[in-house]
């Protein structure tokens, strides 16, 4: 397919661009296969706006006489408005944008066309291999092994080719366990707590069905993580009634009789359309222009967004607490094990593992617990809060995770190597990107699409020193402790950086950020100077002593 076919009017002049907190500007609008480009040459400061078509969530067109207006609502929640003279031009442009922003074939997406302008120092596609992770694990314990049972994705289509499993189980047993778990997602290692040797595993629900099926290998697998005489905890992200209902559809939960050493805890983490609706309502409230304070608070409340945040953080804290404080191993799962399960396991690691609070460590966490673990990014992030499509599989699961990280970050502003911008950047790229990292729903699909060969990895770009400097938290001081956030409502706030990003003037906050950086930079410079002088003096003094002795 040629993009040109979709672009009836590639260029329009005298277009006026409106953005919140910016004066309106007049300029030229161009459409290319993947971008909407607006450029103005006001005075001497030429301004350009490049918008990926895939970032466009929905558009609305209006006409006043022959002047058409297109409101473009983006997946990063920004809303811009273009006034285009000429009814036909406007209609053409609107329909082109609509078509180009809803391409149904992945291989037509921009990452397949994007050619980086920077030199690739380190290929992000091979930056975070599970093998490296395992090497690190092996230095701490020998109870685990790498299994290639899924190397052709036949045992579990949503798992990566290699996984870490207890040493005591061979691949044959794993195949049996896979048949007993929804989607073949047998329990695998998610996190090993060095401090006390406890493990966190994740899986999908067991297929017990109504007649209480059991699987000896499954029991053996989960039990192999227990120390003798100790118990473990199964954290089921569904409430008990939902888990019980799941049996009717062949699913279910671990029954006490077969898993006597395990205690089951049911938490309630919302899924799918409930989350999506909550997201839509929240964004609506944030965009509400009315002046009524009461309506804001009740709309915020009605969106339930912060409730979901609270529930999620609570579940993650619980998992972390079982491991760190109870000294117990934990198995986390919901139904499919691709959404709430991953939210819980990855947040628990943020709380427990200082490494996950570094930039590199956090990237590894996203790769390991989200991309390789088979969170269906393409389905979940197909649309954002402005879409009308309301597909069942769309849900801001990853965004919720990022926001929870932000909430913890806010409570421990000195314990993270990255800053808020880093999290916002990940949110943007999960929804629309020039990089291939978040394309596809699992490793299997990514392999079929040959993403590593055909597209650039987000990490190749982010990890360049020039880019990294934007994402560093100036206040960072490595903190080797477990960080327990408060989940009381008073402690949780709306993530303004994402939800009010385009609706509030950020100048003053940015200035504060800049000032912070300056204060710390100046301090470091002085330290360096003082150290250098000290050294110099020490040298001179020893020289002198030597001289005097002679």
């Amino acid at each position, binding site marked *: 397919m040629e993009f040109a076919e979709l672009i009836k009017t590639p260029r329009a002049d005298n277009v006026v661009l409106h953005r919140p907190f910016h004066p309106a500007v007049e300029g030229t609008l161009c459409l290319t296969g993947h971008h909407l480009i607006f450029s103005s040459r006001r005075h001497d400061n030429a301004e350009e706006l490049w918008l990926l078509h895939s970032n466009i969530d929905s558009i609305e067109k209006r006409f006043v006489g022959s002047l058409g207006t297109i409101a473009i609502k983006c997946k990063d929640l920004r809303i811009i408005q273009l006034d285009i003279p000429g009814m036909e031009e406007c209609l053409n442009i609107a329909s082109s944008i609509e078509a180009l922003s809803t391409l149904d074939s992945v291989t037509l997406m921009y990452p397949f066309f994007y050619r980086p302008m920077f030199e690739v120092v380190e290929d992000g596609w091979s930056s975070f291999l599970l093998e490296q992770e395992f090497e690190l694990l092996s230095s701490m314990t020998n109870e685990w092994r790498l299994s290639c049972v899924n190397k052709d994705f036949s045992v579990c289509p949503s798992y990566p080719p290699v996984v870490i499993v207890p040493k005591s189980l061979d691949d044959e047993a794993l195949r049996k366990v896979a048949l007993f778990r929804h989607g073949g997602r047998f329990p695998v290692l998610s996190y090993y707590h060095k401090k006390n040797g406890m493990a966190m595993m994740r899986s999908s629900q067991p297929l017990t069905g109504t007649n209480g099926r059991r699987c000896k290998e499954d029991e053996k697998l989960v039990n192999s993580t227990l120390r003798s005489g100790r118990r473990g905890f199964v954290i089921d992200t569904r409430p008990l009634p939902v888990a019980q209902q799941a049996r009717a559809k062949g699913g279910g939960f671990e029954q006490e009789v077969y898993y006597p050493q395990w205690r089951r805890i049911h938490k309630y983490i919302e899924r799918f359309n409930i989350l999506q609706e909550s997201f839509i309502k929240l964004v609506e409230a944030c965009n509400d222009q009315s002046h009524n304070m009461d309506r804001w608070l009740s709309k915020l409340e009605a969106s339930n967004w912060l409730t979901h945040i609270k529930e999620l953080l*609570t579940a993650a804290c619980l998992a972390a*607490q079982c491991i760190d404080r109870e000294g117990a191993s934990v198995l986390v799962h919901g139904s499919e094990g691709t959404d709430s399960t991953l939210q819980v396991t990855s947040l628990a690691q943020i709380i427990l593992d200082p490494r996950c609070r570094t930039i590199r460590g956090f990237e590894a966490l996203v790769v390991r617990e989200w991309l390789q673990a088979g969170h269906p990014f393409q389905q979940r992030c197909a649309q954002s809060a402005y879409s009308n499509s309301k597909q069942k599989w769309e849900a801001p699961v990853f965004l919720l995770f990022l926001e929870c990280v932000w909430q913890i970050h806010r409570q421990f*502003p*000195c314990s993270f190597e990255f800053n808020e911008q880093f999290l916002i950047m990940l949110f943007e790229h999960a929804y629309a990107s020039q990089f291939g990292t978040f394309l596809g729903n699992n490793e299997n699909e990514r392999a079929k699409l040959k993403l590593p060969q055909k597209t650039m990895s987000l990490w190749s770009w982010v990890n360049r020193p020039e880019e990294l400097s934007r994402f560093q938290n100036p206040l960072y*001081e490595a903190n080797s402790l477990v960080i327990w956030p408060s989940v009381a409502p008073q402690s949780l706030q709306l993530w303004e950086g994402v939800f009010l990003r385009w609706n509030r003037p950020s100048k003053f906050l940015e*200035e504060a950020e800049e*000032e912070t950086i300056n204060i710390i930079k100046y301090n470091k410079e*002085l330290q360096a100077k003082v150290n250098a002088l000290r050294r110099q003096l020490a040298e001179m003094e020893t020289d002198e002593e030597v001289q005097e002795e002679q």
Partner: protein
Amino acid sequence: VENVRLLDRFSSRRAVLGTLYLTATHVIFVENGSETRKETWVLHSQISSIEKQATTATGCPLLIRCKNFQVIQLVIPQERDCHDIYISLIRLARPVKYEELYCFSFNPKLDKEERGQGWKLVDLNEEYNRMGVPNNYWQISDVNRDYGVCDSYPTEVYVPKSATAHIIVGSSKFRSRRRFPALSYYCKANNASICRSSQPLSGFSARCLEDEQMLQAIRKANPGSDFIYVVDTRPKLNAMANRAAGKGYENEDNYSNIKFQFIGIENIHVMRNSLQKMLEVCELKSPSMSDFLWGLENSGWLKHIKAIMDAGIFIAKAVAEEGVSVLVHCSDGWDRTAQVCSVASLLLDPYYRTMKGFMVLIEKDWISFGHKFNHRYGNLDGDPKEISPVIDQFIECVWQLMEQFPCAFEFNERFLIHIQHHIYSCQFGNFLCNSQKERRELKIKERTYSLWAHLWKNRADYLNPLYKSDHSQTQGTLHPQIAPCNFLYKFWSGMYNRFEKGLHPRQSVTDYLMAVKEETQQLEEELEVLQERLASLQKSQSGDNKAKSKQQDRSKQFGLYTSNNSLANTPQEYGNDLKSFPSRSPSQGDEEDSALILTQDNLKSSDPDLSANSDQESGVEDLSCRSPSVGGCLPSEDSGKDSDEAVFLAG
């Protein structure tokens, strides 16, 4: 009384045993056992209510609510003791004479001269001069020299030069409580001013020539503008109701060249109830997000804060952008008027955003113009209907602005919280009584100490590290966003949940940056010393060795100390009883604020946070969201062991 248990608000399991002491000025709870013997001090004047609850098997519970939003729950073993304490506290918390207040016995060991110096720190004459008056348009009037015209006004007030004593007195007779229009803020740059008064006694048709002349005079004092705004900060309905009682508002037809404007800020009774409702929400044991947001909305608190801010923004805009003078009043002109004038001044003039300037602002718009501190904050036993968090709201407005303009204020959040504390503590004389007249009669300045001097002495604790006097945010008028801005107003947990340390961010960016800045300063000094030494060393390569080694010792003291890391390394562990699986607030034996350590020795009882220090573990809650069946069935054998395990990692 011995064997008293201090309960944790969130978990009955976290109670501590100790001894309760009642002194003439404080309630003191000293913990048994632990080496630290943590102490909780509460000033009697901070107590807002005491509640004796039904006796249980374990004893008699006593709930003490404080005006600084601390809530203390005690269980006293003997019913009789509890009753005695209850009766004593009720009496002690409601003194009837000013002489019973703490400030008359509080002695920070300063001599008479130092005390006098302290009171001179904030000088309103100096402040009016700074604003640029007296000048061609404004003069000081002595009509109220002996409080003869208005007993709630100061003796020295600034009025337009063209307003004769006759006009002032005439106007005062036409105003509630004779609070005639007087200058609050003068803008040197464009001659526009903010004046304040009470409502006119206009009823349905009354008018007063002198009052009309007075407003005329205010307009003439600003030659650049041909009208003035008259801002009535009440809701229109309230103002109209007042007309029936012979009061009311200015009729535009009677006054030449005024533009009249209502700004609906509710009265003190609405505000009191609103705070009450919000505090109920803060006190909920484990609220869901919906409970909290609903409660917050229902209280209407943030709506009221926004109304006050909107009024201030309107006036600041009129003065700065339109160059038009404004006369502000409400009913008596001492509550809403004080709020609105001070918010507007703060927006207009960067000076008020400095530490000293903020003290001056409170002195000017609140203390000198007769805000009724005694009645509003219940220092002496009085009519509970007079109590209202008027200045609390102003202080919150400042905090809301600090959130929006992080570099604009010289002081930090702690400064605001400590001022709020001392408005209620009665430890310093500044906020005593209802007017300047009463304070003079009581000889406050000779008998008590000034809070401003105390804050100024410890100003290092109150600095905002992001403030730079040459930063753009510290210049000129602040322009808060007007619409849509609802989401810019946030719940201030640092104030209303200030004693629940577990709810707050565990690492303070402010403290961290202050530590960095302090270190930077030491580095600068060391750098200088090193450079000097280097120079001298290079000059005389055969200098005296001994002298040098001495110097070296000195530089070692400067050594790159790492105390600023202490923040990041604050122990952070749950010390929770694991039976209950708390997933929340770690009770990470939070280290005392460094700032508090500094002031602890000499000002033990004056520091608002001191009592909090001994209660560091508050804020630990049971996990509210766990399913009830889960909590009970967790293995209990681990719990005892685990709580000993709390790790306090140092360095």
